[in-house]
């Protein structure tokens, strides 16, 4: 009896403690979330103000009147549709090529044995460490001689074969037990079959990671398009944004409106994929 009562007491104490802890957790999380969102809130609020209100003191987070017309104004000021179309084309192509070829190559690096494997892999890793600025010029000379300058293909080939994708996929594949592949081999599957039927389905999470990473990286890339794309019909959203900032340097409300627009597509991709991102991993039992 006494034993039981004691236990019950302890249970009550424990649950109050855990309620307090949980409440604390929420407070901290919400505070952090607010902190994280501050710049976005400022951005959106600035995009709905008049330009002289943007930097007024003290800060007014909610605009006095909402100037939605800022958003219609920017469409007439910059060819946003062209920019969006170009950026989407590049980002989709790059993401597709990058994911396909790097998961292909990563399978070989993680699960197959061949001469020169380590040397090749070190080549990949080493180039991740080299900042692009240093080999930009030789790369540019090469691209020009291949006739890719000022075409969207320049950015596509530039981004599609980055070493990062191979590196990431290999790390993930390494976490998948080799026994799985061996069992499949005994069952008579070819290596291509193993890649398609075993590795790919198991690496949904990794692929989602890579897709988000590549898509976001390509979408937000500034230097590449700035160097390689010259004519207006070829420009991407980031170059367009920078140009807009230069030409309207004091129109912070409009700059922020364009920024908000440039943000939307990437957010959609993330929201659409994040389900796979988490679930995919939970089902594979993948550790890496």
């Amino acid at each position, binding site marked *: 009896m006494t034993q039981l009562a004691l236990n019950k007491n302890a249970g009550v104490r424990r649950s109050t403690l855990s309620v307090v802890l949980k409440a604390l957790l929420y407070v901290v999380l919400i505070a952090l979330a607010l902190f994280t969102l501050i710049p976005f809130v400022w951005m959106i609020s600035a995009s709905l103000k008049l330009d*002289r209100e943007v*930097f007024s003191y003290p800060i007014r987070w909610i605009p006095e009147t909402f100037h939605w017309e800022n958003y219609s104004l920017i469409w007439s000021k910059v060819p946003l549709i062209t920019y969006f*179309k*170009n950026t*989407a*084309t590049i980002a*989709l*192509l790059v993401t597709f090529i990058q994911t396909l070829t790097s998961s292909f190559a990563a399978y070989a690096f993680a699960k197959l044995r061949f001469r020169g494997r380590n040397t090749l892999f070190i080549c990949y890793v080493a180039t991740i460490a080299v900042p692009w600025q240093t080999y*930009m*010029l030789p790369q*540019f*000379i090469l*691209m*020009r*001689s291949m006739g890719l*300058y000022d*075409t*969207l*293909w320049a950015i596509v080939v530039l981004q599609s074969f980055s070493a990062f994708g191979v590196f990431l996929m290999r790390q993930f594949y390494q976490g998948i037990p080799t026994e799985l592949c061996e069992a499949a081999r005994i069952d008579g599957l070819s290596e291509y079959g193993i890649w398609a039927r075993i590795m790919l389905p198991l690496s949904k999470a990794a692929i989602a990671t890579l897709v988000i990473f590549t898509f976001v990286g390509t979408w937000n890339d500034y230097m590449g398009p*700035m*160097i390689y794309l*010259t*004519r*207006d*019909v*070829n420009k991407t959203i980031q*170059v367009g944004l*920078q*140009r807009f900032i*230069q*030409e309207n*340097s*004091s129109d912070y409300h409009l700059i922020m409106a364009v920024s908000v627009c440039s943000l939307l597509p990437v957010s959609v991709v993330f929201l659409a994929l994040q389900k796979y991102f988490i679930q995919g991993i939970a089902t594979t039992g993948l550790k890496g």
Partner: protein
Amino acid sequence: MKKALALILAVLMLLTAASFAVAEEGQTLTVVAWDAETTPYLKAEKEAFEATHPGVTIEYIDVASQDYATKTGTMLGGGDTSDVFMVKEITDMLNWQAAGYEEPLNSYIEASGYDLSGFAGIESNYAVDGEQYALPFRSDFWVLFYNKDLFDAAGVEYPTNDMTWEQYAELAKKMTSDGVYGTHYHTWLSAVVNWDVCDGVNTLIDGNYDDLAYFYELYQDLEDAGACQSYNDLKAAGLHYSAAFENGNVAMLPMGYWFVSTMIGAIKDGTCSFNWGIVSVPHKEDVAAGSSFGNLTGAMINAKSEHKDLAWEYISWLAGEEGSIATATTGTRPAWVSEAVASTMASADGFPTDDASKAALVPVYVGIEIPASEHSSEISTVLNEEHSLIMTREYSIEEGIAEMNERVAEILG
């Protein structure tokens, strides 16, 4: 799901095919310039040239001004064949010349009997060992802009073409009141201390910067008095000087002549609506009134161009009298100054009509902002770094200048 994927892919291919179509070429001259979309004089020049040269089209390749050095450097380094490149900084021109990107011009000048006298000698800044590599078509010197309405409202006399820096500082403080700043300094080194080269003796590459202290002290005194917005705030907000002046709460602004065309445009499209004028920048006691400093803008022919003769026709026209008149109509100051050009400048639509503004069009001396030398770009990096330390008050003026002297001495070897 698979059908959707196939559809997406199909759409993608179509988009791709459409985006990759190449534009057709005619009798076209490609000219690489910065902010081509928004610069009024480039538009005026293009129209005037195409009108007098039927069948020729000028196509600008627009590069954002902040990326101009990076992008043009890569283009030229990569063997780009655009015909003409605008020269933004003299140091760029030297680098390009050293790398062999620029077509030497002496043979063209001789063959066409081109008369360089209209440049009054400033074209020599674009010459290396007696060979001309580019022609200047803009020469901007610094003037003092002021907001006439603010002076009228305060009942204070307008600035004049003959003011010392002390008189200017006094005026700035007098004009400062609630919500109005007496003057405005953009964050650049040139806006604060480049006045030092107005005397025709000092340069910013000679390795001795002790004289800059005078201008830093002048600035800090004004900043402390609240007569100008603080450097730190301007930096953090990234405020553009045009926005600052157009806001209408700044009484004076020392700025390059190019701002005249910006102001004319701003008044025209209704961005701002006050009366303004220009006068010569202030001077030190021992320097002649009307002395200033400035910078050149030019055009060069790409050594890899496939239309060199047409390109020569273009740049010689651009820098010569006709092109200069086209340039001057927009309120921009050409490098070639003849009587016809001067009267075009003064009668540019929207240019202030008072006599002082007209008189300010003719400086008595224009020093070069940073003259070209082997070390110009390295020195200017050092000066800008130390400038930011002094302006943020991390360093005292003495400390900053001592470090400028020391570091530049090291570069000069």
